[in-house]
Every structure is written in structure tokens, then in C-alpha cells.
């Protein structure tokens, strides 16, 4: 079923919307959540929560890209679960490593919250990601949005693990420079 039909079902308040969402995006959301929580039960709970939040937000929202819409919800939900369970760094899955890698981009003791609103950071990230070659952008998001393991992200982009590691390292360096240039580091 295409996305517009699924969204239409939500607007019509038909419960089939959730069945259709689960059928098309269930495994996708489950993978994201599992990557973050490293727990089958938590992932299942987050995916169910994703359908519930979607039901509560469509309408009034009318998302055009459901993969991104559901992806963001399940990611946020999974991060919340992880936060609740323990401090983020002690969490399971691919999150601690991804976090450690990213800290080099905003390292140096500066407090991002004091320097820029989260929205500014996101806008800056959008600009940065759009400046990247498509493959590098996809690799970056596979690793840090979908929280794929390095192997899985490399596989998605048809790269070797080493090659993906090198590209990600360079991308992080570029990001650090980009954030510095925009006054966010």
C-alpha cells in the first residue's frame, strides 16, 4: 500500500491504518529501535508506541514521507527508553559507540545548549548533509540516524567496513569544521 493511502486511512480514523503501517514499516521501525535499545522487548514496545503516536498526530499532520515520519518517532521513543533505563553511555546496542564517535565533532568543553538552540543545530546539520555526496550522506545517516552498526551501514552503501570507517571519520572531521565555522562548536 502506498504512503498516501496509509495517511488517508489515518485521516479517516480507520484502524486499518495501523495494520498497514505495521505491515509496511514494522520491520523497518523494529530495526531502528533494536539498533538503539538492543532489546527485542523494548523494540517491540517502541514500535507499538510509534503507531500510537502516529494515530494521535495524524491528523492534524499529513506526512508525505512515512519512512522519515515513522523513523523519527521510533528513534525518539527508543532514545527515551534507553535514557530511562540507564545513562545513555551505558546503554546497549550501537548507541554508545555512535555517541562516542560524534563527541569529537562538538568536543572541547563548549556547551551547545548555551551557544545555539537545538533547531539551529538541526538546520546546520541539514546544510552540512546536503553538501555531502549522496553516498556519504546516506552512510552518515545510516550510522547516526538509523544507528546501524558500522558493518550494516557499510553493507547498505555497498562499501567495505574499512572504507566506510574511513569515510565516516572524514565526514565527522568535516562536520566538526562545519560546526566550528557556523559557531556551533
Amino acid at each position: 500500500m502506498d504512503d498516501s493511502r496509509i495517511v488517508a486511512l489515518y485521516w479517516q480514523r480507520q484502524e486499518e491504518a495501523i495494520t498497514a503501517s505495521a505491515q509496511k514499516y514494522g520491520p523497518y521501525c523494529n530495526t531502528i529501535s533494536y539498533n538503539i535499545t538492543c532489546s527485542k522487548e523494548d523494540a517491540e514496545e517502541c514500535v507499538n508506541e510509534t503507531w500510537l503516536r502516529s494515530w494521535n498526530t495524524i491528523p492534524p499532520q499529513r506526512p508525505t514521507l512515512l519512512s522519515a515520519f515513522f523513523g523519527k518517532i521510533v528513534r525518539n521513543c527508543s532514545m527515551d527508553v534507553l535514557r530511562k533505563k540507564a545513562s545513555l553511555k551505558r546503554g546497549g546496542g550501537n548507541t554508545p559507540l555512535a555517541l562516542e564517535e560524534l563527541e569529537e565533532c562538538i568536543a572541547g568543553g563548549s556547551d551547545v545548549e548555551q551557544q545555539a538552540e537545538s533547531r539551529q543545530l538541526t538546520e546546520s546539520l541539514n546544510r552540512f548533509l546536503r553538501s555531502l555526496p549522496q553516498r556519504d550522506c546516506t552512510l552518515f545517516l545510516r550510522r547516526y540516524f538509523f544507528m546501524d552498526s558500522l558493518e550494516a551501514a557499510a553493507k547498505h552503501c555497498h562499501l567495505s567496513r574499512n572504507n566506510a570507517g574511513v569515510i565516516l571519520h572524514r565526514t565527522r572531521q568535516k562536520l566538526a569544521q562545519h560546526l566550528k565555522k557556523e559557531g556551533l562548536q
Partner: protein
Amino acid sequence: MNGEKLLQAIGQVDDELIARAAKKERHYLLPWAAFAAMLVFVAGLSFLAFGDLLPFAGVEQPVEPPYSEAVLENLQIGLMMDYQALNSAYERETWEALFKYQEDLNIPCQYYAPTGDSTAERLDAMTQAVEDGCTVLLCNHYSYGGAMTEMAALNPDIKLVGIGVGLYDLYIEEGEAIPDNIYCLTYQEEYGGYLSGYTAVREGYETHGCYGQMSTFSVLHYVVGYLEGAQAAAREMEAEDRIQVRVEYGNQFYGGADLLEMSKLFQARDNDMLMLIGSGYLLEVAAEYPFATITTTNEPFAGGNSETQFYIQYDVDKTIDRIMEMLLTDEFPGGCAEKVPHYRLNDGAGTWSFSHTSREECQQVLQELIDGTRECSQAIEFDPEDYTIEVIFLGNSK
């Protein structure tokens, strides 16, 4: 926690960027692999039809796209739908699978539907597609057999692909060769049946009702496959003396008020597992029944009283990928009709919740069927006496 802040911000980047990264990359055979495959094909080894293509997710192929700009420039695809079937799940999935190639590779695709249920009207729709510039027509129903044969003679430069179209659907005389610009594929029904029967027994069901909508060749293949799969699993579990399968045909193509009666009939026979083979209306029966396996329909299952469903569906994505690989590598296997094993097995929710059978085990079973290390007859008849499980043939229910 600056890293966390950044991680959070990444979670809010533009949807378009995320959607693009979410997209599965397409996989194509490396040029050498495609070349080797075609050599084997030319050598006429029929098993190539199923080589290295599994009907489950997760099969990776080498990735370098071997297609050339010249091939891409000349590709324009018309998807010929079945009459009044635009809204069926099968047609929708086919269109969506094809449309990805328009999105990813800018190959123009358009779907067409005949205005009536006749060969002449199908031919009109195909002619319209050719006039619109289509160089390839994917005909997505066996009823296109006649129109494909006529179109092949009228337009020898147009490639015609029949999905679900068998040799006997074409209007050619016995012994006559299939035209060079026609390639047909049908699904390996007995494999779908085998996987159902095998998994059902492995899941612990002992009394099975096997209901075929109408005893067509396709349904008979499924039935025989089911019996053989059930027997194979029973043998592995040393449970042959406990397994019973009752086979019955509905002798009708349509649904209606007698569906519920049919369901009650099944209940009365104390089946604890039901195999339903036929079109979408059987989903209504499945919804009334605790455990059922449904096949030959791609309609989503929408609940009911069912606790567990074994849902065998055509793996349309795999089929379209297979056809597109042939077109993109400019290796169109004209003059050929073959069977493909592209099925996907899920539960009713579209996931995998079976207790005693893993997805990998099912993959393995299918691979063994494909490579011939596990046998499955292509027969359309069976003799209950030939089975070591108990098989009871009840004939037509009406």
C-alpha cells in the same frame, strides 16, 4: 553531553534526507555473474530459473550496476494490468515494485488497463502503450496470453513479458516455438504448497484441511506440494502416524453467502489447521478459522478470529527485480517460458511469529527444493496410498 545533543539533532534532520537514506539500495548482478548466468541459461539448464534467488529478504547480490546508458535510454515500460484489477494488492505491489525503477533509474513506466475483458480490448490497451513509446510490455495476468501472441507478431521490436502467463496461455500451436520477443514466467506453485505443508507440520498441527478453490492446474500443484511438504516434515519429526490431511475442492471461483457455511463445515471436521488455496475471498474464511494458511492472494490479512496465519504470497519485488535485471543487462531471454520460486512466507501480520520453525530453516528448505537436494513433485494428481501420512480425498464439496 554534547555528543548526545548532536545525536538528538540528527534525529530531526529533514525528512527527505532520512527517506533517501532509508531507501534500500538496489542490487544487480556483477557483469561477470550475469554473463555466466546467461551462458548457463543458453545451455538450457532449467534449474537456472531459480539460481541464487531466494524468496525471502536478506539475499545480497554484488552491486555494480552493469547497465549501459544505451539500454536505459531505450527502456520505457508499460505495465498491463488485469481487467478491473487496478486496486488488487497484487497489481498494486507489482506497480510499486516497478515504479521504484522509475524513481531510481528514471526509467519511464506507465500502467494500462483494458476497457473490457477480451483479447481485443487487451490488444487495444497494449497498442496504446506502444503508441505512447513503450518498448517493453509487462503483461500481468494469464489472460494476456492471446493478446501477447498477436502483439508479438505485429511488433517484433517490442519485448513482451508475461507474468503469470504459462506456455499454454499463449496462442501457439503445439510444438510451435514461442516468439523471440516473448518471455513468460509463472510461479512454482508446488514450492509454495510445500513450504506451507512443511511449516504447518513443524508448528505442531496434526489434522489438516487442505481446501482448493477449484481444481485448476495451479491449485493442484499447491495441493501436491502441500502433501509432500507435510510428509517431509512428519518424516523428519518421526510423526507420520499422527498427521492427517483431508483434501477437498470447493468447485467454485467466487465467494458469497456460503463462505460461512464452508467455514462451519471445516470446523465440524475438527481440522486444527487449514490450508486455503485460491483468490482473495478465502481471506474471509481464514478470518473465521483459528489456524489457516492462505495462498495465491496478496491481499493484506485484516484480522478476524485467527490467532496464527501462514501466509504464502507472491514475492512480487523479487519477480520484478528478476525481470528488470534481464532488461537492464540487455539479456532478454525471448522465446522462453519458465517457472520462478519467488514466494514469501509470513504470518498474518506480515512478520514471523512461528514457534518451531525459523525463517532460516524455511529458507534452507526452499533452497534445497531449488537446487534439487529436496524433492517436490510437479504432479497434478496424487494417490493417497502413496503417502506415509494419512491423506483423505473428499472430492468436491459442492
